[in-house]
């Protein structure tokens, strides 16, 4: 077996389920891989660890990050995207005049600094969000709860659950994807030299991970969930169930291009569309060769599609 280290972007959760599934049910082993998952955290910069050679693969949060790798000449390449829909959302309190997306720009917005450096820039340009309304979000929704006229960023599969349970109401949820933010998410990135030296290893990792995701979504995922809870003892069954349900309902993993080309697929057209939007918003310079940042070589092979229930 080839030893492989994979860094995720957050603590173990259902959003990483496919990878845990592939470890737990022996898919990676069948592809000749011995995978160790290094779970992330608020400050863990997975791409930096990848670039420094501390891990072999890393989970990328969104496509903007990929553009930035290109801009900074960091030899990291995106080889697959497990999510077709970036689950990033805005939430607002219901019934305070913030029920439509058009209402949001005027509200105080709690956003994390990584969003501030990326999506926010586009939101400003595309929808007129304002810097002076931005306040930091440190993965604690109390300030949002305390201020009824505020909005907060979140992940479709997690923050609304906490708000429902602790805040005692169901917030309005706006999936940015629905408003034109067509970034990829939960991508697999690796170093350019890994691709050059051991393309076979990369292919096996991508294929096995895709298989893992199909299994996680559609088959028995108890082992994977047990593993998630072992890595992250705070994780509850309720949260996992909620996430899974939301992922399925919104087609986070398996929708759009994935329906025809299989999970993990990336297309040049969507990349171009997203890049043009971001370049127009000034999030990234228009003159970078963003195509260097990804490759279609390992995906679109319909791997594992047979696992999807008819």
């Amino acid at each position, binding site marked *: 077996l080839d030893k492989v280290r994979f860094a995720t972007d957050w603590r173990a959760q259902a959003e990483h389920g496919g990878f845990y599934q592939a470890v737990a049910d022996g898919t990676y082993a069948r592809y000749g891989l011995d995978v160790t998952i290094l779970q992330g955290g*608020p400050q863990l910069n997975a791409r930096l660890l990848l670039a420094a050679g501390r891990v072999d693969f890393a989970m990328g949060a969104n496509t903007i990050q990929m553009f930035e790798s290109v801009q900074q000449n960091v030899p990291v390449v995106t080889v697959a995207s497990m999510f077709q829909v970036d689950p990033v959302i805005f939430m607002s309190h219901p019934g305070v005049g913030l029920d439509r997306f058009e209402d949001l720009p005027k509200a105080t917005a709690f956003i994390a600094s990584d969003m501030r450096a990326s999506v926010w820039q586009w939101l400003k340009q595309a929808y007129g969000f304002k810097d002076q309304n931005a306040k930091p979000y440190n993965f604690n929704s109390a300030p949002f709860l305390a201020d009824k006229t505020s909005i907060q960023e979140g992940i479709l599969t997690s923050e609304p659950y906490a708000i429902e349970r602790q805040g005692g109401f169901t917030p309005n949820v706006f999936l940015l994807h629905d408003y034109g933010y067509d970034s990829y998410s939960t991508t697999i990135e690796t170093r350019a030299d890994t691709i050059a030296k051991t393309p076979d290893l990369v292919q096996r990792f991508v294929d096995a991970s895709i298989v893992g995701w199909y299994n996680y979504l559609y088959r028995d995922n108890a082992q994977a969930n047990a593993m998630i809870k072992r890595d992250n003892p705070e994780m509850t069954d309720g949260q996992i169930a909620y996430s899974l349900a939301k992922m399925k309902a919104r087609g986070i993993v398996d929708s759009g291009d994935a329906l025809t080309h299989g999970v993990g697929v990336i297309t040049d057209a969507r990349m171009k569309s997203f890049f043009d939007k971001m370049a127009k918003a000034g999030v990234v310079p228009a003159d970078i060769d963003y195509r260097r940042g990804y490759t279609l070589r390992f995906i679109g092979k319909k791997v594992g599609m047979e696992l999807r229930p008819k």
Partner: protein
Amino acid sequence: MIPNRPAIAWRDIGVPLAVLLAALALWEALVRWKNIPPYILPAPSVILAKLIEDRELLFSSLLVTLGVTVEALIVATVCGVALALLIAQSKWLERALLPFAITLQVTPIIAIAPLLLVYLQPGNAVLVCAFLVAFFPILSNTSLGLASVDFGLRDLFDLYRASPWQKLIYLRLPSALPQFLAGLRIGGGLALIGAIVAELAAGASGQGTGLAYRIVEAGFRLDIPRMFAALALISLSGLAIYGALAALSYVLLRGWHESARAQDE
């Protein structure tokens, strides 16, 4: 000939305790009266209940955090004192080394933690972060102490041709003790914060998670009572560390240093 008074009287424990309880009662009353929801500000009773409910989880996390704190404090003490001694040897060494120490002090570790993880293993990164925070006060205060040796005594040691080593052991270290201990009291609290910040920043890997992670996690889940329970544990640890170091100071200084004796004897 040293008075045999007990090191700690009931007042030293009782009074702070009483004041603390009063403050908690006020808090409880405020929360109840204003009907503040627990996710904004939980009442002390709620926090206590949570503390008891989650005791296993929280106390095992506390142990992890305290482990890092103690380790960091020890390393910071050793390094701080060692560097202070080195600096005290000559003005030239001071000029050459102090800028680095200051640079280390003002480097915002949470901001660079992602980088530290690139250079170091996570466990070491946490320790380095906690160490960096606790280190400077100890260095700075010990330096002041070493520089404040009475000139008459310095002359005496010069006269008897004391070696640098002897000056250190018999003169400079005892002279610097009061300031060093004050530095240690500052450093103790900072090591605790350092350990927490470091854990947040450099994150321990899965198995042993400290209180910092519990706090963030609880915040993420909006389990604010648990967050406060974890904060309460941290505060109590801080008080305990301070108390221990203050008692140490008292034992080491009573009898001779002004700061630790009563006047009319």
